[in-house]
């Protein structure tokens, strides 16, 4: 009897088990980020003078990162498209373009934070900056995790194995992009 991984079978819901699991992860992340951003919105509305601190966020860096994440979302959905077509070479290339986007995002964020910390805007300097570094930092950890998972999936794709995982990591990556779509106006535009 040959072994078939459970993640490739359908659950009773009619959805592939692995994909259903990723959607549950996305659901749990909604509560994590929703709670964090909800708490930030509450405090920001209460202390409108936080605008004095938020004026020092680097909107250009935030905008570059938004562009990077939107583009990487396109790359991963194209990787999924080519995985469906069983074109494992193109799929591999687009996964690595997405990983390149993740690394670029982290590079821009590192330079941005280095500058802000150099100017004295640290995680303990003001409650606004505590929220800023926590929200962006937790998001950054998700970017790192997603990039690492994509590396492993890409090598399976090269061996033409587990191509269904490209869709699953795609769902996760689009959610990381979605969170940034809301983080950007909250932290960088609302000044």
């Amino acid at each position, binding site marked *: 009897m040959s072994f078939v991984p459970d993640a490739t079978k359908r659950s009773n*819901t009619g959805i592939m088990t692995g994909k259903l699991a990723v959607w*549950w992860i996305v659901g749990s992340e909604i509560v994590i980020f*929703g709670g964090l951003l*909800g708490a930030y919105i*509450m405090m920001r509305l209460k202390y409108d003078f936080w605008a004095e601190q938020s004026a020092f966020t680097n909107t250009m860096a935030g905008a570059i990162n938004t562009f990077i994440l939107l583009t990487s979302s*396109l790359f991963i959905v*194209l990787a999924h*498209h080519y995985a469906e077509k069983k074109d494992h070479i193109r799929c591999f290339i687009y996964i690595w373009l997405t990983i390149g986007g993740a690394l670029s995002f982290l590079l821009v964020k590192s330079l941005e934070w280095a500058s802000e910390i150099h100017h004295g805007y640290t995680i303990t300097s003001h409650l606004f900056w505590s929220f800023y570094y926590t929200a962006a930092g937790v998001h950054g950890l998700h970017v790192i995790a997603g990039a690492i998972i994509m590396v492993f999936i890409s090598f399976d794709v090269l061996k033409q194995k587990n191509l269904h995982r490209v*869709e699953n990591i795609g769902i996760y990556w689009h959610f990381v992009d979605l969170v940034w779509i809301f983080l950007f*106006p909250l932290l960088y535009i609302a000044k």
Partner: protein
Amino acid sequence: MSEHVEHGPRHYVKIYIVLLVLFVVSLIGPEIGIRWLTLITAFGIAVVKALLVASHFMQLNIEKKLIWYVLISMLLACVVFYAGVAPDVMRAEGENWKNTSSLKLIEEHKNYKAESEH
């Protein structure tokens, strides 16, 4: 692999271009300096972009309804959290309590609104 409507790369590139245009509008809108325009362009467009990514890139528009129920229930949980604590967190004092550190901060910055309007 999952069953879905066949969309080629062109469709995804079209959605990407729409997202970029919306992104540029959301950058320009707040520069004009009108509060309601900032809210619409920065936050309203963020919601539109999120829906585009969710429906076209995450393919929620063809996903089973169960996934929608899971996501909506998680969003509702966030709304319940916000509604439950906001009445206390967003105030500095109530009938039988005072948040003295909060009151002190607000007092220190009480001229902020007046100064920012000038």
